[in-house]
């Protein structure tokens, strides 16, 4: 695969945006589930998509919109619960859904995105729009019944859906080895008659390559693909949940942080490709953008009680508890 240098820098830029966005969360408003360590999987998958392709994500929701190219200001304002947030402060950290970039749901119900992504694929097929639907989910989510149900439906109807597993090895404290009858998630694809591929999620271009193949199959009407990207979460499950037990070794965490960081690894690749000088300017640019979005979020107003009512239905309905006009 010969990638254009500008495109490669955009890959790099989006990974750094996710990383610094979340470091800013840690510094300024520590809520939620971070994607730090998983940027290669996310960005590799998103860069294989067109802007109008659909995406569903998870409780670990910050990476997907950024990977898909969303503006940072409304995302950070959402983290802060502000009215200028992408969801007006109503959705929050687990739900950074930017529909202008094709996102239709970041589901905090684990497994909730499978049917929705599948439905988006059905919609694209019925309308003949040529769009594909990218469904992000974790290793833990594959044990939810909606996974099998949805993959099967996409298989029957040859829907243009890519089921993309960010396998970070754990669901909260539960390792894949103790929650899956066998640990190769991609192997589940065969039972539904679709291809399943495993890829190194820390190698962003490898992820891009397998995803592009899945996207072409989907656009060609050949149906869904299951991609399992092996990755790792560098931080705790969530900033907000105290974990009283030790379920993974310090050694393991150090190994990933020090030798398998997708950004560090990609810097080496780009440097070898002669793009080393550009990295620093991308870094600086992203740092500025982060500063800007944090300031924007801090300065923004909170939503008002009337916003709750205004976002409930497509038509005005007088419901119990709604202040009479």
């Amino acid at each position: 695969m010969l990638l254009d240098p500008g495109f490669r820098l955009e890959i790099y830029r989006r990974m750094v945006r996710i990383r610094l966005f979340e470091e800013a969360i840690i510094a300024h408003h520590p809520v939620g589930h971070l994607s730090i360590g998983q940027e290669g999987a996310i960005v590799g998958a998103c860069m294989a998509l067109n802007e109008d392709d659909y995406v569903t994500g998870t409780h670990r929701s910050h990476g997907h919109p950024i990977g898909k190219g969303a503006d940072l200001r409304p995302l950070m304002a959402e983290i802060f619960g502000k009215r200028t947030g992408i969801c007006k402060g109503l959705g929050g950290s687990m739900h950074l859904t930017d529909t202008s970039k094709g996102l239709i749901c970041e589901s905090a119900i684990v497994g909730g995105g499978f049917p929705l992504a599948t439905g988006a694929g059905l919609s694209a097929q019925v309308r003949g729009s040529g769009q594909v639907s990218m469904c992000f989910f974790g290793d833990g989510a594959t044990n939810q019944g909606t996974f099998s149900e949805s993959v099967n439906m996409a298989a029957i109807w040859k829907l243009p859906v890519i089921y993309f597993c960010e396998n970070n090895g754990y669901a909260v404290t539960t390792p894949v080895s103790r929650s899956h009858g066998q640990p190769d998630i991609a192997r589940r694809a065969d039972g539904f008659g679709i291809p399943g591929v495993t890829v190194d999620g820390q190698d962003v271009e490898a992820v891009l390559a397998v995803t592009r193949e899945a996207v072409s199959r989907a656009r060609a009407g050949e149906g869904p693909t299951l991609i399992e990207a092996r990755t790792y979460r560098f931080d705790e499950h969530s900033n907000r949940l105290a974990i009283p037990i030790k379920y993974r070794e310090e050694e393991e965490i150090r190994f990933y942080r020090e030798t398998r960081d997708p950004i560090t690894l990609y810097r080496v690749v780009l440097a070898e490709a002669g793009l080393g000088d550009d990295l620093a300017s991308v870094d600086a640019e992203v740092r500025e953008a982060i500063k800007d979005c944090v300031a924007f979020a801090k300065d923004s107003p909170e939503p008002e009680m009337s916003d709750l009512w205004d976002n409930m239905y497509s038509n005005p309905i007088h419901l119990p508890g709604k202040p009479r006009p």
Partner: protein
Amino acid sequence: MNEIRNDTQRLSYLQAIIEAQREEMRRDPNVILMGEDIAVYGAQSLFEEFDASRLRNTPISENSFVGVGIGAALTGLRPIVDLTIASFCYLASDQLLNQAAKLRFMTGGQLRVPFVMRTSTFYNNRTAAQHADRPYPLFINTPGVKVIAPSCASDMKGLLKSAIRDDDPVVVFEDINLWGKKEEVPTDPDFLIPIGEAAIRRSGKDVTIVAFGGTVSHALAAAEALAVDGIEAEVIDLRTIAPMDRDAILTSVAKTGRLVIADNSHNVGSVASEIAAVVVEEGFESLRRPILRVTAPQVHIPYNGTLEKQLFVSKDRIVEAVRMLV
């Protein structure tokens, strides 16, 4: 039961469902129909007219095919999902209540969810407790979902068409005990009945009877029987369960001072309970007597048909309740 427009056509309740779907599928290519064995449940004639791509026989995967419909609704289609039997609603309730009901709100209004889920209550059919649920209350506590329960063919047509054109998720409760009932139904392809408005089926000054779906005909029969004794019942057909037309109920009770509610849900936490709560909260001053709920008792539906049919709302049970009040 609605005022007859220029042209009408004699249709059963089930035919009205099919015709409503046919007309909306003609009108808007984004309307699709999904469900298990949909041809068996009435849709076979649609296969002759529409592209198979818009008629999807689904695998048996309730939570997911409802969710697939919702996902399609988020992205440009207006899906109708037929969940056949209402006892299967629990399986699909997560996608309905955690996704469809909440997504517009949770995205700050970025999304709309023009999604219809049809489901039919299969009581009085000797299929036992796992097929006979009337889970009307399941979808009313969580806001964000509209719920309709038409009582006759023309209402079904007009309300279902409104549901399909609505930009919010709508659950449609059909009643299989009504499927065969025929009446004149308007043929105007823009015949719509607004969601959220009750209908006064009969005026009266002595007592208000609120009913919906399969209990309306029993309420009307009860009113006729009571009229013989000079008791004039006002019969309100709720038509929409959520959002409820509280004004129609309160206005009627302000006149009659007495209220009986006929609902085939189990008693506890029923739609009838909600109506009673609204009236004792907002209409207390006009209440002259207790509010009585005529519902299914708090016991499961047995297979034995003799016992089963005694559990549901009947003309006699409504008459008996009214007589306790007047």
